[in-house]
């Protein structure tokens, strides 16, 4: 309970930091170029006839939502944790009464607000400029979308935290993290909508954890899922979140036991 009472102050502190260094976040938007390249090619292909049920408008809607959702749920903390562990700065966080995970979570949450506020205007313009209806904006869908985003963010954060915990034993954790990002971007619906994979593969991908951070929220927002499908996939995602949380806890416990920096 004490943790909750500390959060407002923690968030305020990290918010000021995020607002001060906002130029850094502009660079993170460049990450959206690859999916937009894919979008252009799909749109080119769909001009004559739909590709596997996707019209050009569908592609535009899907990728716009994917770029937005990626900024909502995407997390990149591995490099920072790695630096803290290698330089020994982590010790400073360890002697504080609050677990180090809360510092990172507060930072991730506040960074989100800065990026999303930058993205909303361009996406709104694009949505209005492209003819046709791309998003399902009923209150029930939006609520489900919000829930899916929250689960996706939790999954992303915990998965990154788990990976970052590997820095207690290996030096090239950021390399591992880069490989993970790659796999996740491709199999998680950021680069290609999952429905466009060959049939057996696309139904298998629904059961993997990668779908929770981008594919699920996007498919909900673009109105491609029935209520039952959304519920089932949300449950699958939540189960993965629980599993990853346990894994992250085990890794960090073992890691902190082995951690031998100056002053630890």
């Amino acid at each position, binding site marked *: 309970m004490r943790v909750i009472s500390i959060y407002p102050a923690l968030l305020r502190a990290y918010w000021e930091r995020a607002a001060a260094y906002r130029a850094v976040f502009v660079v993170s938007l460049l990450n959206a170029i690859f999916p937009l390249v894919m979008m252009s090619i799909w749109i080119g292909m769909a001009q004559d006839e739909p590709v596997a049920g996707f019209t050009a408008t569908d592609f535009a809607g899907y990728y716009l939502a994917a770029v937005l959702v990626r900024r909502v749920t995407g997390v990149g903390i591995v490099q920072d944790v790695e630096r803290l562990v290698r330089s020994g700065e982590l010790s400073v966080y360890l002697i504080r009464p609050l677990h180090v995970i809360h510092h990172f979570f507060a930072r991730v949450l506040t960074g989100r607000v800065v990026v999303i506020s930058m993205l909303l205007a361009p996406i709104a313009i694009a949505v209005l400029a492209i003819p046709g209806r791309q998003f399902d904006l009923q209150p029930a869908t939006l609520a489900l979308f919000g829930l899916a985003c929250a689960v996706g963010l939790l999954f992303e954060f915990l998965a990154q935290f788990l990976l970052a915990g590997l820095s207690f034993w290996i030096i090239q954790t950021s390399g591992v993290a880069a490989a993970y990002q790659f796999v996740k971007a*491709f199999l998680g619906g950021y680069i290609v909508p999952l429905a466009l994979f060959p049939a057996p593969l696309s139904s298998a991908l629904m059961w993997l954890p990668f779908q929770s951070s981008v594919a699920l929220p996007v498919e909900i927002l673009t109105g491609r899922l029935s209520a039952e499908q959304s519920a089932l996939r949300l449950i699958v995602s939540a189960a993965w979140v629980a599993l990853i949380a346990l894994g992250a806890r085990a890794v960090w416990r073992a890691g902190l036991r082995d951690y031998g920096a100056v002053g630890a």
Partner: protein
Amino acid sequence: MRKALQTAARYAALLRLFAQNSLLANLEYRVNFAGALLMSLLDALWAVGGALLFYSHRATIGGWSFHETLIVVGLFFVASGFLDAIMQPNLRDVIEAVRTGAMDYTLIRPVDAMFHATLRRYRFEKLSGLLVGATLIGYALFQLRLWPGLGQWAAFIALGVAALALLYALMALLIALCFRVVDIANIEELVFGVLEVARFPAQAFPEPVRGVISLVIPIAFVSTVPAEALLGRLTPALALYGLVCAGVTVLLSARAWRAAVSSYTSASS
């Protein structure tokens, strides 16, 4: 004439020395070679996988068959390997040197500042991109049962070199920018981001994107145009335009460097 030759020989010797130095430093971390190769292979797997996905829905895209597109993908890997291995480490060094004032040590040397600052350090392990790219191109040609003639190879190599020169000049322009705006975090991401467009043939994009990447920001010259040269369906006008673009950008970057250096007030003065 003799003097020009002497200068060229001196710069070539310097270049060899820089490469040797970097290689020795790289060899200290041998595992990095395996790591970089692994990353390139993974990247290639996705690039080919992405292309396979497109082609599982259509037989040709923008007039390009799957194996023809693989040549473009291969050239993309060559270009990004070149940027990773040569331009990125130097860009990093210049940003750091301008910030700390260590740039002075480069400027007082009796060598051209642009040459020294942009070609000083290499990361040879990142050349894995070149290896992967060349393999893809070879595989595609084999599958196409295509044996390009001498003229086609010559055009391919000339345009490929021009493409690398274009990329070099773009990066050098960015590096020159670092003298004015010191705190540009990750500015090289801009070039890498734009380069993503070169992953696929320019004709696969719908207008107006296609026009932009073939004429305004000539990123199509990095992969699409050399691939067309190899396939023997190059339009001479477009090739000429690419060569001119590369030449103009190189000249522009040299001028930008002269301007940046002459207006540079070091951290100590």
